[in-house]
């Protein structure tokens, strides 16, 4: 397992880097609009009505954007968590933490693909 992870390290790192990019560039705006402004009713009437939101999301660009917005930050978080744990506990725990992190990221990737497909 250790060996496999070591071999995949370049891909993981690429996803991790991509996660930073997407996360930093897009997440703040989405979180603000969708998770703070919308529920508090700061947005104009109908801006995020189900119909409009669905239409936006279901269009191919929307689907792609959502997929990327879910998957890349998760890979980023998974890899970063692994290194954070190494920083706190040393490499001893890595044999468990690394597979767990990346397995979770794989699962999330799968679910996200299905979810985005169902839109």
């Amino acid at each position, binding site marked *: 397992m250790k060996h496999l992870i070591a071999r995949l390290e370049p891909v993981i790192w690429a996803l991790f880097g991509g996660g930073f990019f997407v996360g*930093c*560039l897009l997440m703040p*705006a989405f*979180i603000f609009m969708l998770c703070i402004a919308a*529920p508090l009713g700061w947005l104009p009437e109908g801006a995020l009505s*189900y119909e409009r939101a669905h239409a936006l*999301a279901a269009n191919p660009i929307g689907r792609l954007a959502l997929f990327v917005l879910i998957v890349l930050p*998760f890979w980023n978080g998974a890899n970063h968590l692994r290194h954070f744990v190494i920083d706190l506990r040393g490499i001893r725990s890595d044999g468990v933490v690394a597979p767990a992190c990346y397995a979770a990221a794989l699962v999330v990737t799968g679910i996200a693909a299905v*979810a985005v497909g169902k*839109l």
Partner: protein
Amino acid sequence: MARLADPRAMSPSRPGRTRTAPPVMPPLFPARGRYRSYMLFGACCVFFLLSSLLFLRVVDALAAGPEAWDDLLRQFRHPLYLAYNVAALAGFVFTARRFFFQLFAKSQPPRIGPLPRPPLAVLPPLLGAAWVAATALIFCILWGAFP
């Protein structure tokens, strides 16, 4: 005394010829000085994980129909959700600052294949501009102004 590092840190593969005192971690690690901001940066991974899952829920709700969607927005109004999202927003902005303005530019190789790298000094402002543009675009779309 600072905490101990891994006992094998910086040791040769065959032990030295005399007994050594074990390596210790840098004294301020992890909680003080510049390490603190590094560790906070590390801890922000939680927001990446959770917010990613949150968006998965958003997609799920959109797929499930209008009731689910309204239900979700109602849940988001819960103080716990709001508190989390405000914290996450702060976390992402903090991460973005470090990533865009400290780390990103200098990690670009002088050339990738035939492509030379733009001057390092222009990258952070460029990233800043991209961030403003992307944020503005998303604001407009979700505000309903566009398309």
